[in-house]
Structure formats: structure tokens, C-alpha cells
């Protein structure tokens, strides 16, 4: 079977990417809103805007990295297992891993925790993600629910993609001039 046959279509990629965008951009924006009052205390609005450009540009690249990971899984696993139910299983796989990372990051902050503890948590994260991903394709009701949610989430891409492009331009321009 060729690689092309295992690659998801764009129509399948968008909903999964939307889920990734909600979680990656959402995590950063959530904490940025906590930080915003402090920035407002001493930074002009223009500079705060530029900081947000850096944040959004960074989120853009990390969301692409996460999407790339899901597509790799699609290439590795049999077509029937993943490619054919890409929206539901891809969304649940991405969400379960990203939410696990959130929980880990919420509880640990030292670099040594990340190097020594995260690898020991990783099998558990992968096991949970694997089970949930399997269920998302196997139980019809869950599959449908995930698909409906993910397809509706695509609307966020209409905001995040232009914003990311604009942010990238701002970051590039400020570092060239």
C-alpha cells in the first residue's frame, strides 16, 4: 500500500488540527490572560501586541509539530485502524496526549523533573492515549460525537491561521529591520 493511501485527506486533517489548535493555543492564551494585568501595568499596548505575536507564532509551529505526529501515526498504523477513522481517532489521540502533558506540566516545573520523571510517565500517557484512541474508533457513539465536535472546531482555524500568519510576519519584520 502506498504512503499516499495512508495519508489523510485535507478534509480529515482540518478537524484534527482544530483540536490541536484549541489545546495548544488555548493553554498559552489561558496563562497569558493571567499575565496580562501585569503586562498592562508597565508595557505599552503595542509591545503587548508584539509579545502576543511571538506567542501565537510559537503556538503555530508547535501545533504543526503535533499534527505531524498524528500524521506519522496514520502512516505507521494499518489504514483500517487509523486512516479510515482519522478524524475521531486522530482527534482523541492528539487531545489525550496534549491533556496528559498539561497535567504533567501543571504539577512539575524543574528541568530535572522533565528529564527524569517524564520518561517514566510516558508509558502511562501512551497507554491511556492508546485505549482512548481505540475506543474513539470502536464505539460508534463516541466516534460520531468526536467527529461532530472536531468538525465544528474547524471554525477556530479561520481565526488562528490568519492570526498566525500575521504574527509570523510581525516577528520576521522586527528581527530583520
Amino acid at each position, binding site marked *: 500500500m502506498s504512503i499516499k493511501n495512508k495519508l489523510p485527506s485535507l478534509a480529515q486533517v482540518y478537524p484534527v488540527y482544530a483540536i490541536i489548535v484549541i489545546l495548544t493555543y488555548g493553554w498559552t492564551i489561558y496563562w497569558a490572560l493571567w499575565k496580562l494585568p501585569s503586562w498592562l501595568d508597565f508595557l505599552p499596548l503595542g509591545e503587548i501586541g508584539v509579545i502576543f505575536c511571538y506567542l501565537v507564532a*510559537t503556538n503555530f509551529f508547535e501545533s504543526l509539530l503535533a499534527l505531524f505526529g498524528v500524521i506519522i501515526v496514520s502512516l505507521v498504523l494499518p489504514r483500517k485502524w487509523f486512516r479510515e477513522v482519522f478524524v475521531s481517532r486522530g482527534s482523541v489521540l492528539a487531545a489525550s496526549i496534549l491533556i496528559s502533558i498539561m497535567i504533567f506540566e501543571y504539577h512539575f516545573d524543574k528541568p530535572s523533573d522533565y528529564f527524569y520523571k517524564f520518561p517514566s510517565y510516558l508509558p502511562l500517557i501512551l497507554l491511556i492515549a492508546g485505549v482512548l484512541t481505540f475506543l474513539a474508533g470502536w464505539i460508534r457513539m463516541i466516534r460520531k460525537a468526536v467527529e461532530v465536535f472536531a468538525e465544528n472546531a474547524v471554525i477556530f482555524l479561520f481565526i488562528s491561521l490568519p492570526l498566525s500568519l500575521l504574527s509570523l510576519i510581525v516577528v520576521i519584520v522586527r528581527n530583520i529591520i
Partner: protein
Amino acid sequence: MIRMSRRDFLKLAALTPAALAFSQTMAPSRLGADSPNIIVLVFDAMSADNLSLYGYPRKTTPNFERLAQRSNVYHSHYSAGSFTTSGTASLLTGLYPWTHRAIDEGGQVAPAFAEKNIFSLFGKSYDRAGFGQNVWAELLLGEFRSNLDVHLPPSAFSIREQLGGALFQKDSPVSYYAYDDFLYRLGDSPNSLIFGLLDRFIFGYRLRSIPMDGYPSNSRSVENYLNIPHSDNYKIYYKLEDIFRGLLAQIQQLEQPFLAYFHLWSPHAPYTPRQEFIELFKDDGFEPPKKPKHPLGDQLSVAPIQYARLLYDAYVANVDSEFGQFLNQLDAIGMLDKTYFVLTSDHGEMFERGIIGHENPLMFDPGLHVPLLISAPGQKSRSDVYSQTNSVDILPTLLRIAGREVPAWTEGQLLPGFGGVEDNSRATFTVDAKLCSSFGKLSIASMAMRKNGYKLSYYLGYGKTDWFELYDLQNDPEELTDLFNENDSTSNIMKDELLTAFNKNSGPLQG
């Protein structure tokens, strides 16, 4: 069309060398003949009250004392701010915090004053270098970056560093705000979900192999790296000897005359002395005076405060030792014969009244009294100045030394020994307003005014009532007896003067 004969051409050709020579004399160049070099070395969080240079019983600074033998030594020098941002901004602008408004943690000088910094005032005829190892100092240097010829990142000369902002040095300080002060800041969860995880994982891996030679380590611990000097919130691990070695190399690369501002993190917490210094003062019998806890303090008990003081003193001794090597090397290359060398700090550190450190709004001397030594080129003798001075005085003094005009807007005065006179009747100030917006009215603030040997502190907005404290610094240097009394003339005169100054400057930022 103008026609040129062969004769005209030859005449013009003959003039070319003269024209070239003339154009070179008119081109902007750094004229080093008369202008001295200036090195400003700032040690972060170094309290004068813990230095043997100023009479502290523990022998913490023998090398500072060696420098003092060829310097003007200022005994009553105070920072205008109580932490890095405000203290550094005052040093670099010659303005009090209520004027420059870099009053918040990691804040910036108000846009109207951003061009009123020491680097801009020295102008292009000086090679101007800035190094802020403390990221909050770097945020200010980043704001002044258009006036810097050499701008070193905070991670320079480190053994392990990982700063996102340094990748976008051209866009400092915004890039540091985005990456190092927010997305990847240590001490909290990373605010970038995937890259934050990778960033900390990679840094954790890199810290595994950090060389521990000379520093305490335990083969069973995975956190030995915490014993190496480092910044607690930013990924910068370094050894003092590397920093001084790097600075020396940098100094030798600068075009003369130069102005070099080097702001080191040490001896800021975490206190991480080398193994040989850790027990230097253990069981030495020194008992600091007992002082009552302050309502705005952390209410810590005596034991952890004494332990922190012991470690801090050992770290200061370690810093002093490395500084001694640096001083020797500067001497060996003849740099001190053509350079004004300024040693100071941005604020102090407290180990009393239930407090460790400087993250408090209190106006007691250990947190504000900082060292100041200025060694002139070739100076051979020591001169002691006992009248009170302030960090806002450094900018006008250095401008005068460099033959520059002192601008009228500066709030400092020339230091005694460099054109100024000893004047204890002058009022100087320290301001802390980190809970306020730098754009708005200063409604929660603490401040101190020193005059005629007295210090009046004012705490505004911290409780149901505001209050004053008055100390006689000459007869009660430990600030144990609060003399403030509404019926006392000294209290009232000082109160009126402090309130007048505060009311004049505490309104919303104009412009």
C-alpha cells in the same frame, strides 16, 4: 555639458589626497586621547551592611578593601530602588523611580525617559557596552539597545544556558518578555505546551553533565546543578570565574574610550558559594543584633534567617575572591591606569525582622544601603566620603568625568570627590511601588527620605492606615527605635518635605 580639459583633470587629481585627508578629519571617530574609559560593575543584591569594607565583623570583602585603598569610598550610599528593575533604572537614568516609572518587576522606563539614559548621553564617541546577566537588567538594556554598540545577552559566558530571547536579540526586550519571562520561565509550568516540555527536557539533559568541580555535589542527587551559581527563574548557569574571564576579554576588545556597564547576577539568591567558602564563617561566634519582626515582613523565625545570612556572607566572600582575580588582571594589562572603575549594587539584601531577601516593601538599611567605590585612573590613595549619596548621583558624575554636560533633568548631583560637595542637608529618596501600575497614580508605595542623618520612611496603602517611621541613623544605625511623633518638629519637617516630593511625582504618568 561641462567639458574638462586634461589640465583641469590634473589639477583636480592633485587636490584628491588633500580632500581625502580633510574628509577623514571631519568623519566621526572615537577620539581617545583625553577621554577616560569607564567600567561600571554592578553586583546584584549586594548589601553594604554585609561587607567588611564597611565594618561588618565577618571578613567578607578583603579584595574590595584592596580596591578601596585606591578609590573614593562612599559610606552612606543608597539605592533609589529596592529591587533590580527600579534600582538599575535609577542608576542608568539618574532619575528616581517615581519619575522613570520602572517600578514593576521586570518593568521598563517610561517611553518619555527611554532616551534619557547614560548610553545615549555618552554619545557615539564612546564605545558603549552593556551586559545584564540579570534578565530584569537586560530588559532595561534592551530598551536602551539603540544606544549600545556592544550588547551582550544575559547568557554570555555561562556554562549552561537556554534563553529564547537571546535568539531574537535584535528584538530585545520583547523577545525576552515573550520567551524567558513567560513561555519558558522556570518556577512555573511552561506556558508553551509542547515546546515548553521539550525545552525543559533538553535543559534537564544538559544540566546532567554540568561540571561540579569546586561546588558541593552528592553522587545520589539529580539536582546537584542547583549548587552552581544560577538565576532562579531563567535558564542561566554559570561559574563566576568564567564570567570575569569573559568580561576581561570583552574589555580588551572594546575600542577606547569605552563605557562598559556590567551587571552581574551574583551574589543574588540562590546563594551558591564554592565548597571552600561554604563553612568560612560557621561557628565564628558572630551574633547579629536582634530586631523585631515588621508587620510587612515574612514573619520568619531566627534560625532560617541566620542560616541564610551565613550562606550569603560565604557567597559574598566567594564573589569577592573572584573579583580579586579580575582586579589583578585589570591591573596587569594596565587598564586601571586609564579607566574610572565604579563598583556598586542595584539594591541590598535583608536578614532581619523576619525577612530573607529583598522581595518586600521595607525601607530598612540592609535592603537599600549599597557599596560604592570609584577608582580614578592611576589613583593611589583612599578617600572616604561619609555624607549620604544616592544611585541617581552616578549618572551626572560619570557624565562630568567624561566631559559631558550634565542635563538639567537629572535628579542626582555630582558625587563628592568628583565635583560635588558633602551635603547631609540634601534630601535623597528610595521608592518602592511594585504593586502599582507604572502609568497610574502611585497609591500603594513605600518610600524613604534621608536628610541630616535621619531617615523617614512612609508606608502608604498597605493597611487600613498609612504610617511613618523615623530613625536617627547616626545614633541608632541598626534602626531599632522609631522616633516618629506628630508633635516632634524633626518628624513634621521631614514628613512635609517627603509628602511634598511624593505628591509632586506620584500622579498618573504624563505624556
